[in-house]
């Protein structure tokens, strides 16, 4: 599904990703762990096409297509979704309006018919119930005045509504209490399927108790310095990143 090879990327002239290689096959969940400043968020922005992130080497394909050549919205239409570490506030635009506009823009790009208002509302009620989100909250301006935890939950709600194929979760666990973490994880797990893949960025093992990864990678100094099964996360929890940070 996603294949990153020897990827180099710079921000404001400073190289952050320094030859990152990673394959995430369909049906799998891969965790990326690493110390602060390792380049985890940078990776998520490079994959989604944020301005200011210059690709200085290597490449990335999604289902064989050159992902990095596409506009951010074109990547979204192909099913790439990022749950932001710091979700943005959109004043004056109700959450439901925002999501419906996005969903229809994606459908249009894929040549599918737009979703009707009743079908959209039905879907929204269903997903809101699943994520235990008060429906009234969805009528408020997106993320404006929401708590950190509410914003994260709203990211997962958007994900559930847009039903993407390649999911990137950037520190979705931060700001969530244990109940919220469980609910959000259930929401994420509901999207696990043989034709989807996920990249779960975190630096705590805690999230991985709920979202069980197939593979765990350590990102340090701009590249993947170690890979293993779920047991690697436990080891990192116990020993910390020191060893890898030094190796990088």
């Amino acid at each position: 599904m996603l294949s990153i090879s020897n990827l180099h990327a710079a921000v404001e002239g400073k190289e952050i990703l320094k030859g990152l290689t990673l394959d995430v096959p369909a049906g799998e969940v891969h965790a990326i762990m690493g110390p602060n400043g390792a380049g985890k968020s940078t990776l998520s922005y490079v994959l989604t096409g944020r301005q200011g992130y210059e690709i200085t080497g290597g490449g990335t394909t999604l289902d064989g297509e050159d992902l990095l050549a596409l506009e951010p919205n074109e990547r979204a239409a192909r099913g790439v979704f990022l749950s932001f570490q710091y979700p943005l506030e959109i004043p004056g635009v109700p959450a439901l309006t925002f999501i419906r506009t996005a969903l229809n823009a994606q459908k249009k790009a894929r040549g599918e018919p737009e979703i009707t208002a009743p079908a959209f509302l039905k879907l929204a009620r269903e997903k809101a119930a699943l994520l235990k989100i008060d429906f009234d909250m969805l009528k408020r301006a997106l993320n404006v005045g929401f708590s950190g935890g509410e914003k994260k939950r709203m990211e997962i709600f958007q994900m559930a509504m847009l039903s993407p194929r390649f999911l990137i979760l950037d520190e979705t666990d931060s700001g969530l209490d244990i109940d919220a973490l469980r609910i959000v994880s259930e929401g994420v797990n509901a999207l696990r399927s043989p034709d989807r893949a996920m990249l779960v960025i975190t630096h705590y093992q805690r999230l991985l108790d709920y979202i069980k990864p197939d593979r765990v990678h350590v990102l340090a100094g701009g590249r993947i310095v170690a890979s293993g099964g779920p047991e690697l996360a436990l080891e990192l929890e116990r020993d910390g990143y020191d060893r890898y940070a030094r190796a990088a």
Partner: protein
Amino acid sequence: MAAVKQTVEHVASLEKYKHGFVSDIEQDFAPKGLNADIVRFISAKKDEPQWMLDWRLDAFERWLAMDEPDWAKVNFPRIDYQDSYYYAAPKEKVGPKSLDEVDPDILEVYKKLGIPLREQEVLAGVEGAPRYAVDAVFDSVSVVTTFKKELAQVGVIFCSMSEAIREHPELVKQYLGSVVPVSDNYFACLNAAVFSDGSFVYVPPGVRCPMELSTYFRINAENSGQFERTLIIADKGSYVSYLEGCTAPMRDENQLHAAVVELVTMDDAEIKYSTVQNWYPGDPETGKGGIYNFVTKRADCRGDRSKVSWTQVETGSSITWKYPSCILRGEGSSGEFYSIAITNGRQQADTGTKMIHLGANTRSRIISKGISAGKSSNTYRGLVSAHPKAKGARNFTQCDSLLIGKHCAAHTVPYIEARNGQSKFEHEATTTRLSEDQLFYAMQRGLSQEEAVQLLVNGFVKDVLQELPMEFAVEAQKLVAISLEGSVG
């Protein structure tokens, strides 16, 4: 409503200024230039009584002694007032006429603009949809006014100003110039001398006007100015909602539009006045051409508990200079001003409002949303004042500016004068730049850059858009989007 839907689709289908076409219509012009004889010419063309001509000539005398104002934050070369036509009208007989008598070419223009002039077509629109009456002003004259009969049945007078002068002289004499005095300011004084046409509305006591009234202004002729004059009187306990729309062809020279609008509300009456202004803004790159929109709009809330609300969506014109104001004379009267002013390319806007609190317990509310893009400049200028007698006066002002790109400017100039200790004024102002982060967030969810800008801007102006009559809000929203096309990236 079919017509509105059509307009919306039409708007959506076009990329740039969509109303820029010129129509080849046989017209009568006054000789070029401005002098007392031109004033007489205009008055004679309109078959006006002597008192009206005297009023105009007096205004002209006063105008000669005045100087062009220079305090607004706008720049433009000196206007040569002799280099323009002050009267341009389709060649037709003067006076009221039925639609069948109107030049088919003119009807075609309005059809192209999506303005419904055929009552039966409006009536045949979507079931249950609100209907609205239209006064169509083409250059210097009103060509047709719809639904007059139906309105007359409830006593509402809706006609062109020219007709009102002939048919309802007592009302015109009583109110014309009573809100905006002849020599109020340079452009208003010029208007008093040479005003061409505009709409007249009188709503009798206790009547709630059964439909939206609207005037559609179109400048077509070259080298001509448009000087419209509108007067709306809402008698005791009455209500009326009125909307004006404006467009002009794309031309390389600047054209002057100096309008005067006067509103009067008696006890417990209410006027809701909305404007969707889309005059040609000039070339976005060179700044060449475009309309100078120098307008004086004022409401006199004479009656106790009377109310006026101004809502404006200003997207066009190369220069906009206007401050729709309320004189809150009646006890407990209230004024509202909701504004969206968008400047792009090389446009300049200096706009805002004045809320003059004269009576006790008067209230006012100002919500202004300025959006600047391109190399444009956008200034909010507002005055809130409370006189010694205006005990208990209250004002709330919210003034937000949104900047798109790095070469535009926004300014906020609020003046506040409280001349008694018992008035309460609140002022909030924000300036934000459309953030790359927000744009990226929306694009990550699937919106194209243009769609993302649109969505964010719609969020920014929502509080004002929802003040517009519903059938116009959709159109205004599209217009906002079109005005900002190409402003990012």
